[in-house]
């Protein structure tokens, strides 16, 4: 196995991090990295420095209309929405389009909700796409989703509601493996009955399920994480 081979030199690792290795050599190097923790961590350090330097690149505004061109190229146009059937589950895992949109919503800085959860975006239509664990009512209706994710603050849950009543307020509860419950915040749904929130993963214990409870104390919907 690769453990027997000599470690990679800084020169080879730097070339690799800069993408200056031709394909045949690259396969050998990456194979070694795959089996060698020592070289992998040295490589990560160099790649880290490269990434850091990249940020220093001069900023230049592209020609006007660039963002619209990107939208067209990604298939994000005004007309696309109306062509999509309601509540479709996508075939390829998490929706990449909406991931970008959610990030965008955050960049816009929509605000921080109660109890330390950030409001990440607002559903604007009934065409929400279910990803992650479905959030279902007792009657079995899917009204949103809960997805596990990461931020540099650690693991998080992204709770997304799309099929609620406009303006309705809900408390979000995390049910841990030991049966204990933790409040994650109280949120009001937006005008279309939707909303998305990022909830930090509790420092203790495994989250088993997420519950949305109405102001009157009735459990409205549950997701098994």
């Amino acid at each position, binding site marked *: 196995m690769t453990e027997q081979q000599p470690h990679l030199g800084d020169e080879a690792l*730097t070339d690799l*991090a*800069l993408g*200056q290795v031709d394909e045949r050599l690259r396969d050998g190097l990456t194979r070694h990295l795959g089996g060698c923790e020592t070289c992998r961590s040295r490589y990560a350090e*160099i790649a*880290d*420095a*490269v*990434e*850091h*330097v*990249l*940020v*220093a*690149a*001069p*900023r*230049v*505004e*592209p*020609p006007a209309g*660039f*963002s619209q061109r*990107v*939208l067209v190229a*990604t298939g994000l146009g005004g007309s696309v*929405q109306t062509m999509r059937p309601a509540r479709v589950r996508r075939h390829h895992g*998490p*929706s*990449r389009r*909406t*991931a970008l*949109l*959610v*990030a*965008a*919503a*955050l*960049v816009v*800085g929509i605000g*921080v909700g109660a109890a*330390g959860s950030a409001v*990440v*975006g*607002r*559903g*604007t*239509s009934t*065409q929400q796409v279910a990803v992650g664990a479905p959030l279902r009512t007792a009657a079995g209706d899917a009204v949103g*989703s809960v997805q596990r*994710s*990461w*931020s*540099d603050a*650690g693991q998080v849950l*992204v709770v*997304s509601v799309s099929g609620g009543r406009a303006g309705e307020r809900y408390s979000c509860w995390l049910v841990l493996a030991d049966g204990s419950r933790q409040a994650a915040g109280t949120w009001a749904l937006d005008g279309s009955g*939707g909303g*998305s929130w*990022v909830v930090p993963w509790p420092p203790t214990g495994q989250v088993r399920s997420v519950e949305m409870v109405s102001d009157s104390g009735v459990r409205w919907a549950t997701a098994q994480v």
Partner: protein
Amino acid sequence: MQLFSGADRTADAALVAGLAVDDDAAAVAFVRRFQSAVFGLAVSITHDPGLAQDVSQEVFVRAWRAAGTYDVRRGSVLTWLLTITRNAAIDAMRARRPMPVDGAVLEEMITATLQVPGPEDEVVRSTERDAAVARLRALPPEQARAVVLAVIGGRTANEISVSEGIPLGTAKTRIRTGLRRVREAMEADRD
């Protein structure tokens, strides 16, 4: 309960999460936030605004497709996008017939990277960029030049040895040593 310290962090988290929000205006905001960084790097590598625009568009399309595989533990959205940009721009240059790059153009790129941003740049300033520029400026000038040419200019060690008029081994050493020092400075600041 822990508060997120800023929009960037939550953006990073949510980018991975891939959940459903339909809002084209928000997508436009995302592109606008990062477009000058992406386009700026694409220009630095291609020296061709038309090609740089194609590359930048491709970057956002790739980012959109790969958002599900993005790992926030590895870095910010900005560095992730710029890594995609660098690869895409270098690929685009390789697909073309090789053309020598004017030394004056490279010089301009190095100067634009290393100059201290003035107050007029306030609008496009980012603390993340300021920190990176400061670390490059702290290097011996010849190492800073080599690192900028290799990373931000996408030039090979061979090309750098020619444009700087130095032996290939020297070019490689400058790049390597410069990058190592950047890394050490990053670690020193972390402690």
